């Protein structure tokens, strides 16, 4: 049975994963924390916490609000900064079999370019996921993901600065995600992740004010899965690069929906909070499904529903 997947066929380094199950950025820290809990080497890949040029303190509390089948977060890119990542985390990743991708976020196109340059040639990093869609920062982040022009410019800047596979993570908070996907691919993206979180809000009716310190947040979890699947389905038919599906995946059945909609790989995120074993459960479930259905190659299932 072959679950391997090549996510950057046109890149000189390539991005060959042993299986399509990836731990999503923001829910798996730097991978080191979960190493004590599950066998992280079995994962297809790990995408680390969104990383900025300088360390960021993030948004005020409360940062999390649970909603029905979902979670609102307003973390605000609280992170250690790229320098500490290169010095403290990458050397650990070097020892690992599982590929680690670095999720980057900038407040300007220049900042994305600098981040990309700083990560060029750093051992232990297998690719870059460009976050143009964080809904929780006031400068940069989201703005790049909702404008076709800005999204293309960020993609091109990162490509110029770094030879590794570049995956661009798209925002669902747009009128036409297909249009954004097209320009990002034309600008050189090796693959696309979709979706990041749609914006949402929850109110504390006792205090009569928003629950989140950041007022609004990004909604994740099973509540957004149908939105994500439809966006993957639409984009998969319009672009030629691999798509990584993300949004509410908690089981192998969820992952299969995304794969059949056109995703080559999947990210498990919020489900990890409730169940640290979730990515491994998804992987084992995929293996069972392929066995049961007599599928030798996972790639046979990609886009099966399109």
């Amino acid at each position, binding site marked *: 049975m072959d679950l391997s997947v090549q996510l950057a066929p046109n890149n000189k380094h390539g991005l060959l994963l042993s299986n399509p199950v990836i731990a999503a950025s*923001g*829910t*798996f*820290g*730097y991978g080191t*924390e*979960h190493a*004590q*809990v599950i066998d992280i080497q079995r994962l297809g890949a790990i995408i680390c*916490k969104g990383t900025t040029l300088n360390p960021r*303190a*993030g948004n*005020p*509390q*409360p*940062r*999390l*609000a*649970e909603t*029905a*089948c*979902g*979670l609102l*977060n307003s*973390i605000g890119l*609280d*992170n250690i900064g790229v320098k500490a990542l290169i010095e403290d985390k990458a050397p650990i990743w070097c020892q690992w079999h599982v590929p680690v991708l670095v999720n980057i976020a900038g407040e300007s196109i220049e900042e994305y370019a600098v981040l990309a340059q700083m990560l060029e040639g750093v051992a232990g990093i297998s690719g870059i996921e460009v976050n143009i869609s964080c809904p929780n920062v006031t400068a940069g982040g989201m703005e790049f993901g909702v404008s076709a022009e800005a999204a293309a410019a960020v993609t091109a800047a990162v490509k110029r600065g770094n030879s590794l596979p570049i995956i661009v993570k798209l925002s669902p908070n747009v009128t036409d995600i297909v249009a954004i996907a097209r320009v990002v691919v034309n600008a050189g993206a090796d693959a696309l992740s979709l979706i990041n979180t749609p914006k949402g809000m929850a109110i*504390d009716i006792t*205090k009569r004010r928003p*629950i989140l*310190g950041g007022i609004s947040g990004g909604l994740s*979890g*099973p509540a957004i899965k149908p939105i994500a699947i439809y966006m993957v389905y639409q984009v998969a038919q319009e672009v030629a690069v691999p798509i990584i599906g993300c949004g509410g995946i*908690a089981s192998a059945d969820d992952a299969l929906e995304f794969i059949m909609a056109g995703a080559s790989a999947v990210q498990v995120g*919020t*489900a*990890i*909070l*409730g*169940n*640290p*074993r979730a990515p491994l459960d998804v992987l084992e479930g995929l293996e069972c499904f392929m066995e049961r259905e007599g599928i030798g190659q996972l790639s046979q299932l990609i886009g099966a529903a399109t």
Partner: protein
Amino acid sequence: MKQIRAQIISSSEVIPGVYLLWAQAAEIAALSQPGQFVMVRCGEGYDLMLRRPLSIHGISQDGSKLALLFAVVGWGTRWLSQRRQGESIDLFGPLGRGFVIDPGSRNLLLLAGGIGIAPLIYLAERALAAGCSVRLALGAETASQIYPRYLLPEGVEPVIVTADGSVGERGLVTDLLPRFIDWADQIFACGPIPMYRTMAATELARPVQVLLEQVMGCGLGTCFGCRIETRQGMKFVCKDGPVFELRDVIWEEIKEPASREAVIL
């Protein structure tokens, strides 16, 4: 830390709306320290995405069983309160950094505000076993909310305070500080944030450790959901805490969690 299915040995409502649950959890209990917590999966399927952080209330003599004391404050804890003997629950832990008793401390003052008693019973048991004297100030709104005397570890000296004066002294647990401060070598507290604010505003010539509550996502330091700014820099409540030195927390900045769910206690 371990993620396990733990069989429930018993569960009972020991205070109106507050449950004491014992589960078979040797893998977690054996490694645990007072002040540490477990993340408890609540609900079936995907309706609740976050685990509930609950303080470890105690462990059995043989180290095979673990006790949780929790108040029903929302969907998750309601679900947990309805679990019965023989059913099993998904526990992840032990997590966080617990209380630290200094080797030189002999007399320990423990302040419990309401359900804040949860981690302090475990601490009291450990302290007594180590030969310390333990005074426990138990505070609640009213008599029926006071932690039952029959559950207190032998050797603990309780001092009871209620807001309405229905049992013990009338007032707040923090009112007892002046009386016991000279006796105590160390103070440990768990309760609502206003209680900590009162303590922080009082000149206390003793080291004080408090257990802080905050909405948590992962319990591991990966989601950055529970981060707070302290006088020692940004900290994870889940990983660097939940126990902090009273003086390190910037109390003006700390907000009380909007929901009583998905927080410690």
